[in-house]
């Protein structure tokens, strides 16, 4: 990569949208913004996007926050205070300033519009707009080079998704030069890809704008009564008047199988976590060339205990699982699980296909299956979760696919 290319990335300002309410992830978002929801044992969802920025050399980042931002702010302060201000690198979290409007952010485009002074102060050549709730690995430098090559005004990262999932995304049609000629936000009948009728070409919500194009577009949008949303309003209008290109996403690790997950629902959240504990995970967190950074409190190493004093001697069995620091598992069975730090699992308990968050205590003879247990919950002895849908529904959130979610600090005794 030539020097001039490296300098290009100094001219990109990254804006991460982290202001959504995350209602469909409730109760995980009861006390925190969606990007701050724990993921994969030790991470928060936003760590993956931020790690992409860091690994792509993008070091001017603003995170636009809004609802319940306390734990996100704290996480960014503790874990992401790694940029050097003296080198003009920074990560700033910005709640609504009410500087040009006395309202909260009305939509994604309005969130950027309300921060127009940040763009003005920084005067970047390009602005990269990202979501704080996606799990993927992407080298944004490749997208920036593509953007330059195509002399684009706006480049949107896109990938194939199964046809039946197309209605959740912005669906894109391109010409042979990757120029976007059609854009339909969440269509009821997505158009299949010309090469493969089982998939459709979807926007990943990753936008690289030339700054002046962006500013003109968001001002134009601010003057109209719209939803002030990039997908619904700005992009469909812009494809007719500007050079808008689709950048086909390729995974950092794996060109055949591009991994990208939008953590929109509890089921999607559970599935994406479970992807990490497969025998050969589609998403690799062990890649030293693309480290995923986070904040980690100091915990002692994980430990397992052989309970020989029990009448029937009990050995731990831990299969296909992630176990974080500070956990002590004593004579229990853990299979297909993600254990965050500082968890105790007592003898004769069995946990399957579950996500257990920090500071959870699991008593004796407990059975848990396909569940998400949020932080600081004590599961009393002999309790079962995930085996009786009707019973579970009385106390907990149960998703369509039957995942049981126990909210943070819930008292069960």
């Amino acid at each position, binding site marked *: 990569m030539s020097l001039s290319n490296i300098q290009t990335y100094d001219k990109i300002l990254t804006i991460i949208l982290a202001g959504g309410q995350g209602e469909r992830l409730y109760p995980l978002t009861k006390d925190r913004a969606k990007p701050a929801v724990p993921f994969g044992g030790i991470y928060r969802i936003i760590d993956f996007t931020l790690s992409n920025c860091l690994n792509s050399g993008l070091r001017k980042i603003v995170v636009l926050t809004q609802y319940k931002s306390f734990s996100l702010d704290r996480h960014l302060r503790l874990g992401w205070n790694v940029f050097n201000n003296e080198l003009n690198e920074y990560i700033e979290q910005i709640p609504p300033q009410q*500087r*040009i*409007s*006395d*309202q909260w952010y009305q939509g994604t485009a309005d969130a950027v519009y309300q921060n*127009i*002074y940040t*763009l*003005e102060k920084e005067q970047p050549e390009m602005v990269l707009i990202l979501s704080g709730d996606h799990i993927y690995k992407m080298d944004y430098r490749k997208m920036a080079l593509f953007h330059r090559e195509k002399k684009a005004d706006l480049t949107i990262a896109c990938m194939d998704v199964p046809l039946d999932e197309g209605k959740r995304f912005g669906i894109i049609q391109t010409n042979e030069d990757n120029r976007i000629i059609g854009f339909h936000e969440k269509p009821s009948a997505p158009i299949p890809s010309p090469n493969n009728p089982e998939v459709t070409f979807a926007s990943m919500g990753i936008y690289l704008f030339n700054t002046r194009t962006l*500013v*003109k577009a968001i*001002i134009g949008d*601010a*003057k*109209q*009564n719209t939803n002030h949303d990039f997908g619904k309003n700005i992009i469909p209008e812009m494809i007719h008047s500007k050079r808008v290109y689709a950048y086909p996403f390729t995974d950092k690790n794996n060109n055949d199988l591009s991994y990208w997950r939008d953590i929109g629902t509890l089921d999607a959240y559970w599935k994406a976590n479970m992807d990490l504990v497969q025998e050969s995970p589609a998403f690799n967190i062990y890649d030293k060339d693309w480290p995923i950074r986070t904040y980690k409190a100091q915990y002692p190493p994980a430990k397992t205990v052989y309970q020989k004093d029990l009448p029937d001697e009990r050995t731990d069995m831990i299969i296909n699982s992630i176990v974080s620091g500070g956990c002590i598992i004593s004579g229990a069975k853990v299979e297909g699980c993600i254990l965050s730090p500082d968890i105790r699992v007592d003898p004769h308990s069995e946990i399957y296909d579950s996500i257990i968050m920090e500071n959870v205590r699991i008593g004796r003879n407990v059975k848990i299956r396909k569940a998400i247990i949020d932080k600081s919950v004590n599961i009393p002895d002999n309790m079962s979760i995930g085996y009786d849908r009707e019973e579970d529904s009385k106390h907990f959130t149960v998703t369509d696919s039957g995942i049981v979610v126990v909210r943070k600090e819930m008292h069960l005794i």
Partner: protein
Amino acid sequence: MTTILLVEDDKNQRLLYEQELKHDGYDVVTASDGKEALEKVQKQLPDIVIMDINMPKMDGIEAMGRILSKNKAIPVIINTAYTNYKDSFMSWVADAYVVKSSELSELKGKIKEVLANKAKDS
């Protein structure tokens, strides 16, 4: 009758503009800073705003942004002695940018143009 809200902190200029615009048949409401402009916009719902930038209490750029957030349909013309505010992204919110001069024909021309565009849109 078309109502113009004229926002200008300099008393003499305010009088000059007011007389000239009234002479052309407009109804003119005045404000002497951005804050007063916001109050007048709410009360009078003018058809168009002519906005100075350098003013006490609240400058014209901020006032324009706040007007837009409440009343999207009211066009704003910036009327300032300075050209360098054109580089400010927020100044792009304005429907026109006029540099003050003793001769008011450019401003008057822009008022007609912006009102005609507004009529076309609605």
